[in-house]
Every structure is written in structure tokens, then in C-alpha cells.
């Protein structure tokens, strides 16, 4: 690990006291950044340590919305959201990720900004445009079983690994930030991440001095929710494919639908075309299959990950079917359910 200096942030106002944000990284739980620093993939000269920032550990609630401080741990958030029917999808996604040890340490802000698990990104002897812009992409004709099929470019096919961010994308969460000049932004999580294009090293629209302060989610009713994660083993593995779904069906008609995919997109994938196709129509298996085709029409495999396209379709159709039949059996049901 390369040596670094430490600035200890006690309050978000302290951002203005940081002399420079060049070669600087915010450090929250460190479960991703410390790992990458050990591999010398991340080599910051300065760490802005967030562990003394007390205010960011709070979850606050109003009648309409929940605001989650950036340092709320994945365990705390899963525990909280489990007991909130309109948000329990988020709990299901968080608890499907990593392990208890990691979730106890990982934070809300850090989870959103965790980096890809692409093998070549981790291997400093290989070409990687994300790690070293302009060097090429070893994954394109290498092992690319875990890579993305949506939103990729010829410069990078890495998938975004977060389960939490996928659920937050479905729930249309808002990310709150502040920069060193004290400017505050409220960014829909659906707009936080940029597509790789020819700049895969840029992953979000955040500036180097821009701190995530909190994430807020409206408490509107969303109906039956399902986070279905398909992976190589049933625990402690990243998603090959995941579907986050919330559906409200009334008299056989899909009144409201929220959909996002994990493991398949270069960012947590908001399945907007599928949502638009489904909304207002009668919930049938044929419709679900058509909606999957609409969303997946632009999907592109790279060889090793070709299987993800049919796997995503099957998972989506299954999840939509389970959510719809639960809504029909239990009208006005609100909350996450388990499906096999």
C-alpha cells in the first residue's frame, strides 16, 4: 500500500478545510477501498477519513420519507428497512449481499460507490481502461462470465456489483451530496452513474470533492416486492443476475411497477422500457415475456456472459409472475416476499 496522509472529517462543513482533493479518497468502512489500496489499484496520497463524522450515522424519518445518513451501515439499514413494508425490498437486497462481517462495516455511501469486481481491473498486469485509461480492455476477449450485457461500450464491459444500489434504483432513491464549496445536490440514484462510453474510469457524476451525505427514499406504497439474486453459490457471492421488483396490481391490471437489474448492467440498471411496457396492462405471463424482450433488445453478450441474457429474461418473467400472483391473492399487500 502506498503511504498517504489522513484528514479526519468531523462534520461535512470540514470539507472546506481540506487543502486539496487531488489524489484524495473518502474512506468510510474501507471494505472496498482498503482492498483496492492493498492491490495498488487505488493509490491515494490523501485519505479523508469519515469515521469521526457522527451526524452521518443517523436514519431520520418523516411521514413521507426516510433519510439514511451516508455512514449508516448495511446491517443497520437492512435491520431498519426489514421493518418498513414500503422499503423491505432494500432489506432483502442488502441481506443478499456479502456477509454479516462485511455488512457490519460497509456503509451506505461506500456501497453506492464500490467498484467493479472485473478480474482484469484487479490484475495490474492486464490492460484495463477503467484502471489505466487508454490501455485497452482485457475482458473483451478474455474471461467475461461476470460482465455486463447492458450499457457497455467497446472500451469497458464491467458490471456494477451492488445489490443495495439495484434496490435503491428500483425504489427511486435520491442521493444527497455536498462539495468543498458547500454546494448541495439532490441526485436521483437513477442518474448518479454514468455509462462507460470512452471514459470508463469515470463512473458517476460526482466531483472529487463531492461527499455523499445521505440517501433519501419516499415511503410511498409500492406493493409486493421481490429481490431475486441468481449467483454461483447461495451466499457470499456477487450477483450474476438480479432483479429488484415492486408491483401493485388492481383488478388484474398493473397499476404501478418499479424494476431494476443487478449484475447485468454497467450501472445498476433501471429497466424503464420494461416498466413503461408493463404499466396499465393486464398481468399475464405473455406480457411479462414481451416486457423482458423490450428491455433486453439492446443487450449484448461478449461470449462468456452470453448466458446472462436468457437467464435475466427467465428471472424477470418468474419474478413478475410471482409478484402479480401474490398481489392477486393478497390485494393491497405491501412488502417483500421470498420466491424460490
Amino acid at each position, binding site marked *: 500500500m502506498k503511504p498517504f496522509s489522513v484528514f479526519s472529517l468531523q462534520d461535512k462543513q470540514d470539507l472546506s478545510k481540506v487543502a486539496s482533493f487531488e489524489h484524495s479518497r473518502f474512506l468510510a468502512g474501507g471494505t472496498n477501498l482498503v482492498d483496492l489500496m492493498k492491490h495498488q489499484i487505488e493509490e491515494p496520497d490523501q*485519505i479523508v477519513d469519515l469515521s469521526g463524522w457522527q451526524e452521518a450515522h443517523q436514519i431520520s424519518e418523516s411521514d413521507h420519507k426516510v433519510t439514511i445518513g451516508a455512514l449508516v451501515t448495511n*446491517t443497520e439499514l437492512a435491520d431498519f428497512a426489514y421493518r418498513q413494508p414500503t422499503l423491505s425490498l432494500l432489506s432483502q437486497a442488502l441481506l443478499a449481499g*456479502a*456477509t454479516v462481517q462485511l455488512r457490519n*462495516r460497509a456503509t451506505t455511501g461506500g456501497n453506492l460507490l464500490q467498484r467493479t469486481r472485473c478480474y482484469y481491473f484487479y490484475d495490474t498486469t492486464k490492460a484495463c481502461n477503467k484502471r489505466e485509461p487508454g490501455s485497452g480492455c482485457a475482458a473483451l476477449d478474455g474471461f467475461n462470465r461476470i460482465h455486463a450485457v447492458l450499457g457497455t461500450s467497446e472500451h469497458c464491459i464491467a458490471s456494477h456489483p451492488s445489490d443495495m444500489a439495484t434496490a435503491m434504483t428500483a425504489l427511486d432513491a435520491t442521493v444527497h451530496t455536498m462539495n468543498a464549496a458547500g454546494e448541495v445536490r439532490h441526485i436521483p440514484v437513477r442518474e448518479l452513474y454514468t455509462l462507460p462510453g470512452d471514459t470508463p474510469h469515470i463512473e458517476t457524476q460526482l466531483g472529487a470533492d463531492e461527499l455523499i451525505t445521505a440517501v433519501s427514499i419516499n415511503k410511498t406504497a409500492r406493493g409486493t416486492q421481490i429481490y431475486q439474486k441468481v449467483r454461483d453459490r447461495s451466499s457470499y457471492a456477487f450477483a450474476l443476475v438480479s432483479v429488484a421488483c415492486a408491483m401493485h396490481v388492481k383488478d388484474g391490471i398493473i397499476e404501478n411497477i418499479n424494476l431494476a437489474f443487478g449484475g447485468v448492467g454497467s450501472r445498476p440498471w433501471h429497466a424503464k422500457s420494461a416498466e413503461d411496457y408493463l404499466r396499465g396492462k393486464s398481468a399475464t405471463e405473455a406480457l411479462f415475456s414481451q416486457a423482458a424482450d423490450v428491455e433486453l433488445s439492446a443487450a449484448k453478450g461478449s461470449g462468456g456472459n452470453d448466458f446472462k441474457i436468457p437467464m435475466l429474461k427467465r428471472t424477470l418473467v418468474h419474478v413478475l409472475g410471482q409478484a402479480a400472483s401474490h398481489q392477486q391473492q393478497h390485494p393491497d399487500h405491501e412488502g417483500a416476499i421470498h420466491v424460490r
Partner: protein
Amino acid sequence: MSSITINGQTHGLPQDPRTTLLDFMHQHLQLFGAKKGCDHGQCGACTVLVDGERMNACLLLTFQLAGKSIVTIEGLASDDELHPLQQAFIDNDAFQCGFCTSGQICSGVALKSELEKNRPSTLWFDPDYTKTEDVKERLSGNLCRCGAYPHIIDAVSICTDEQEA
């Protein structure tokens, strides 16, 4: 608050901010109970309790832990008596080479308190989940290359059941 408490003893923080808790314990304090299996958060052999919560010591930078209280496998037993879960590991033959054991036991100790706090696992969304499946899911962060899982699950299950009784 530039100190850290480990098994009841207070220590100054290491000079170099790059020092992980695991390396600090191994290289500065001669505490070798927590093991280094992977050094990347992927195996759980380094599991310790930080203010009672289990975490991977290999991914913790020590300077971030000022004021925290750490318990490792070395701190679980009292005077002459083993911790009940340590005893259960012996009684159930829950290890082979023993390399994962200190992490498994720290994890199991925390698991018990997490159940007492009613913390959900992903299985809780399934009304038909079994206690054994739940223990397995909650212990998935501790790998055992010897494959001693069945007896590890037995030892931890026996201890958590006793707690509930």
C-alpha cells in the same frame, strides 16, 4: 482518543496509518489468534468483535478504530473456563486443522447476540426457513477449507439454542 482497547488492554495506535488491525495484532502485539487467510475480506479467518460487532480485521485500518473495544479469540475465555462456544467446538469435534476456528468462534459468538437483537437474515423473508439454514446463512462469511462445516453448524446451533431456552 488515540488508543484502542484489545481484550481489555489499552494500546496506542500504530504510527503508520496503513496498518490493518490484523497486522497490528500480529506484528505489534503478538496476538496471533485472528488468522490471515486471504487478507481481502473473502474468508473470515480474521473475524474479531469491534464493540461487539463481528468484522474482518484484515480490512480495518487501525487508525479508524480509535476509542473502540476489540475482542479476539484470546479474550473470550474467563480465567480457567473456556467460553461455552469454545467448549462446544471441542465437544462437537468442530475443527480439523483449526485455521478457521478462531474466526468461526468469534462469528458464532456474535451470531448469538444478533439473534437476541432480532436482526433479520435474508432467509427471514421465507416463512418456511429452518433454524439450521439460518445459522448456515449467518455463518457464510467464515470459510473452512477442511470442510468441517457440519460440526461447526452443530456447535454454533447448540450454543444459540441454549441461549433461547
